[in-house]
């Protein structure tokens, strides 16, 4: 039973003080049969009160506000978590029966949300591709593995090539992306053949000897629903089953449901975001692992409530007028 010590640091720095920020964090590992949180501490600069609730998808969500002017916001989450290996699905049921079972889920909560397809330009191409890729006697499990390999082989993993604002159309044209794009593409492919698929955010915790994509930051992958088995984690970025090395934070339809940290504030929109995730292991010294170098990752950004609206223009104009007078 692996045990991981994870330190996840998120730091926003602003060139000038901002105020009235409202924030939402989804940084609490899921607690279930395969994952147990032994200890978690979240410290936020300014020590705001964090109010938590369980959202529609069962994720624990924290929210806090920070009204006083501040030039930085630091969120430090330290987790001690234990994971268990989940047995992989067997192949002992006839494929046809399994596909039939999946059809029954189409009009059921919660699967209905994980089967819904959003239209995008490449939709028909993807559909044709999925039909061609899927083999007739595949079980859903085999289809999942096949699609994961497809995404892994056909999309290039390039850090920073996309952001949370990149649309599915753009990713489809680029044929490249980061883990969240890989996860989005795979969920789409699975939904197209009727396999409920959801987006997962979390951490990847590899052994020191190996390196995998997605380390040092928050990671994302997918989960597919397999009849008589349940949710199966699948990581298309690394083309592997997401099992005891993947620590889950949240599940949802897509990234927007799982966004680990987001916020809105008043002030200039420029800011810098640094995220680092460091993982220590059970046999490490008892002290928390030191975080690695911060990496600048445009994972997502808070939106200022001060874009160019008429009020802003008005304020700018006032400023302009005053400056004009002051120049004399």
């Amino acid at each position, binding site marked *: 039973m692996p045990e991981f010590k994870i330190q996840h640091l998120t730091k926003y720095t602003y060139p000038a003080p901002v105020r009235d920020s409202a924030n939402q964090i989804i940084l609490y590992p899921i607690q279930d049969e395969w994952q147990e949180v032994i200890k978690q501490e979240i410290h936020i600069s300014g020590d705001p009160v964090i109010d938590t609730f369980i959202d529609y998808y069962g994720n624990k969500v924290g929210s806090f506000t920070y009204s006083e002017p501040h030039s930085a916001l630091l969120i430090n989450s330290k987790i001690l978590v234990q994971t268990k290996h989940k047995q992989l699905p067997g192949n002992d049921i006839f494929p046809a029966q399994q596909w039939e079972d999946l059809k029954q889920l189409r009009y059921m909560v919660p699967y209905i949300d994980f089967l819904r397809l959003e239209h995008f330009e490449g939709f028909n191409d993807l559909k044709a591709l999925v039909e061609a890729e899927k083999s007739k006697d595949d079980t859903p499990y085999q289809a999942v593995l096949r699609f994961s390999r497809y995404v892994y082989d056909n999309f290039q993993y390039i850090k920073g090539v996309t952001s949370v604002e990149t649309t599915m159309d753009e990713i489809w044209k680029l044929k490249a992306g980061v883990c969240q794009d890989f996860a989005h593409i795979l969920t789409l492919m699975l939904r197209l053949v009727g396999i409920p698929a959801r987006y997962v955010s979390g951490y990847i915790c590899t052994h020191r000897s190996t390196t995998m994509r997605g380390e040092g930051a928050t990671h994302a992958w997918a989960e597919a629903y397999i009849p008589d088995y349940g949710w199966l984690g699948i990581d298309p970025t690394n083309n592997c089953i997401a099992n005891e090395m993947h620590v889950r934070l949240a599940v949802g339809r897509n990234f927007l449901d799982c966004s680990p940290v987001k916020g809105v504030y008043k002030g200039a929109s420029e800011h810098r975001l640094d995220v680092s995730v460091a993982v220590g292991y059970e046999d490490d010294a008892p002290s928390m692992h030191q975080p690695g170098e911060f990496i600048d990752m445009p994972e997502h950004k808070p939106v200022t409530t001060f874009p160019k609206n008429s009020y802003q223009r*008005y*304020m700018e104009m006032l400023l*302009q007028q005053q400056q*004009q*007078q*002051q120049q*004399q």
Partner: protein
Amino acid sequence: MLSRVAASLYWLSRYVERSDGILRMLKINYASSQDTVQEFTWEPVIRIFAGHDEETQKLGNDSRAVMRYMVCGKNNPNSILNIITLARENARGVQEHITKDLWQCLNEYYHTVKDNRIDNALKKDDPVSVLDVLIKQVMLYYGTVEITMERGEGRSYMNIGKYLERGIQSVDILDTKFGSIDDNPDLLTDTTYWKHLLLSLGGYELYLKTYREGFEAENVLEQVVLNNDFPRSVIYSVNHIQRYFERLKNDSNIDDYRELSFYIGRLQSHIKYSSVKTIKEEGLHLFLTQIRSQLYGIGDALNNHYFANS
């Protein structure tokens, strides 16, 4: 009172006061342009109210072009048209806090200045008549405020805005006029020059009554900075800022109140305990620069502490 509402009342009032200053300035300068042997220049007016840029360069010294730019210029952020549009928008957002009469009055001012006939008349008719039509709108506004507005917090913010704007204008005008003397010492003895300065501030008649010995730069300075009874003097404006600010005293924001009260008091003393002599010793330009920056400081402090824009 909502901070936004207070800020809107304050700005509404600053804009109307500014429009008044601009209109009077235009009227006097136009008269001056018709009445001078020397080369008349619109340059100081443009400098005070519009600033220098490509657009104002093009105006040259063409009186009608300057006036059209200052009154109807769509691209001039400080044109009467633009600032009255802003004044009206501020009023629109606080309609429940001003009287219906006042709203209708501002509305009429707005529709008057927006009317194409104003621009056309500035092109070819008598500009003074046009300016008078607009000045009358401002006077109607002040009368309506006086008669209909409730004597409460809202009116205090309006008056603070009005006197702050007026104080800044008087300082700017003085600074510009006296600044020109440095370049052209002959102006010091030029009667018309001082007469126009006083006229544009509406202080000509008071001057004649107060000073019998003709136009002296020092006397003009004394009246415009230090005369408690001259409604456009700097000290008069500051006294009124203080008077209306005092009414905002409230237990729940006593710290904010004290801070602003200190700024205003300091400025008031600074002026009150100055004389033409000390001002000359200190240097007029330096003195005016300090006064101006303290007036701006009061505006900033209001913004931070009362209008929630910290």
